[in-house]
């Protein structure tokens, strides 16, 4: 009596239609990327072996491996993390534990959003103007890493703030009532209870930092350097820039070499991301409150 009216059947048809339409849209968004990743893996995966990872590029970068670029990226990411993790975690502690909802806090939030939204090439210009020229670091790992660190700072701040805020208020109140100071509470209660969430954010930052190209182009990454950097004041090669260079700047690079570099880069980034996501899912399942 209720189910079979003409209107109802039409409605159900329309709904089914929309469902399929939206499913198609989602599929069309995801599928090409999956295909692209599959091609990159197929063409690049065959080139990559231990020899490729651990030898220098030879014959004007048209053959050989990617060792200096790999080491360079590790340098850049490590120094960037040394700078941005303490700063970002401290900023998140301020925003989550100390700041009240005032206009000033809102300005800080706006600055964080903008730091994440400013084009990467503008960060590069800033790195050149501030670190390379003004502070006289020259084109060095230090200048490039500081630029990268500032650019990815919002990733650390936002994820850390979220995991700090996930610690229930009652935990803090219980601690305060025992006579603990605010910092004692944060150190003994809030941070231990959110450390895994913070780590998730840091892994995410590693993956962002490793893939960035524009900010390191003029601040510290070189097109080609056969030797490894010795200190943070040296220039270095970087995976991301290396891909750009051999794909566009050097004539006669065999295609599979570029695919190999692209594959290593993407494997690095996606592994880090998957790790971070897996960690998050695991934590969510384990949470007791």
């Amino acid at each position: 009596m209720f189910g079979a009216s003409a209107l109802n059947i039409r409605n159900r048809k329309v709904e089914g239609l929309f469902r399929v339409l939206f499913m198609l849209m989602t599929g069309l968004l995801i599928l090409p990327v999956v295909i692209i990743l599959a091609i990159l893996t197929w063409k690049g995966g065959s080139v990559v072996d231990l020899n490729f990872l651990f030898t220098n590029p030879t014959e004007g970068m048209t053959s050989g491996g990617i060792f200096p670029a790999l080491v360079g990226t590790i340098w850049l990411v490590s120094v960037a993390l040394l700078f941005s993790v303490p700063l970002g975690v401290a900023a998140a502690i301020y925003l989550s534990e100390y700041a009240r909802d005032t206009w000033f806090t809102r300005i800080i939030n706006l600055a964080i959003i903008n730091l994440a939204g400013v084009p990467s090439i503008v960060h590069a210009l800033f790195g050149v103007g501030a670190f390379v020229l003004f502070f006289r670091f020259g084109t060095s790992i230090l200048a490039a890493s500081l630029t990268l660190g500032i650019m990815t700072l919002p990733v650390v701040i936002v994820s850390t703030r979220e995991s700090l805020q996930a610690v229930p208020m009652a935990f803090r109140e219980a601690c305060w009532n025992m006579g603990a100071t605010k910092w004692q509470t944060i150190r003994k209660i809030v941070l231990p209870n959110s450390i895994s969430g913070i780590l998730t954010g840091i892994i995410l930052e590693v993956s962002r930092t490793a893939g960035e190209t524009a900010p390191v182009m003029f601040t510290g990454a070189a097109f080609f350097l056969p030797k490894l950097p010795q200190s943070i004041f040296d220039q270095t090669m970087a995976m991301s820039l290396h891909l750009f260079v051999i794909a566009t700047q050097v004539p006669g690079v065999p295609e599979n070499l570029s695919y190999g570099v692209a594959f290593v880069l993407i494997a690095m980034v996606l592994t880090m991301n998957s790790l971070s996501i897996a960690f998050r899912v695991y934590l969510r399942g384990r949470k007791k409150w």
Partner: protein
Amino acid sequence: MAQADRTSAPSSRDGDDRRNLAWFIDKAVQVLVFIAGISAIVFIIGIFVFITKEGVGFILKSDYALNESVFDLLEEQKMPEAQLEAITVLEGKKFSTPQDLLKAVEKIIGVEAARPYREILVEKSHDQPFNAKSFFTSPKWAPTSEIKPVYGTLALMVGTASVTGFAMLIAIPFSLGAAIYIGEFVTGRKREFLKILVELLAAIPSVVWGFVGLSLINPLIIKLFHVPIGLNILNAGVILGLMAAPIMTTIAEDALKAVPDRYREAAEAMGATRWQVIFKVVVPAARHGLVAAVLLGVGRSFGETMAVLMATGHSINLPTSIFDSVRAMTATIAAELGEAAVGSDHYQALFTLGIFLFLITFTINLTADLILRGVRKE
């Protein structure tokens, strides 16, 4: 309870001074995290100050030079041929004040001979490298020209706009559709899986996207459309669309999720079908968040650098079809900063372009933030 979060005032009642080591450490930490907290503001201001410092000289700089128009005027004033010949050695040379220029001329042809032309030399020799009108309206970007460098960004702006516009044509409908599908139609494990997949897609570095445009989509376009070159608006647009879509999907899905379930339940209780609930209730209620998602997607593709550098073809061009190569503002900086000498006009012009990019993205982000905050207040 009220003093739970107050550690400052020592209790006067029992005369117990709480200012022990823990108290001082607590205060010190408070100061330290505050400094870290404002670091984001410091960096944003720093970015603006430093790119302005490097670029503003170009906007404000005044040069004085014997350019063509000055020679024309001198000729009109009947300057003798021999003297004209003599001062051509100064052509193109830049002076910081008109008096310096006059002195240089007087040195060559003599003070007396230069007197009748004094006015022209002082007043008409103004030659500014930056010209606001041509900066925004000239399609000619030729910063390394030997004769006269031109800094017109119109073609670059059109390049950025056309690629971003094309990307949005793809990304907006598809990512909103995907957000609705993920947020409203699927549940449980399938939903988690799709969300994680979308998140992973957002992580692919832009240089890899550029490489994909160069080596996969380029030959595909040449083959499918029989055009001579596949590095064009279509290529970069597709790539930017695929890049921006995951971010837009995530934010849009968050906006849909923020609509309270009681809205949906109330509509369903009135006999509305699923798609009626979505289109008449959920989407209108989430419209601000959806607009913000679109804006942030626009901001993202607008500022994208490596992918557009590699996939647009990088030729200065006012496009007439999607198969034309263009050049984007961001890509111009990335391609030319390495070869511009520090402090030169060219170098400063690139920083001026950077100021322009910064201001535009700042405005887009600010607008998105204001819209989102409006939602939270409601």
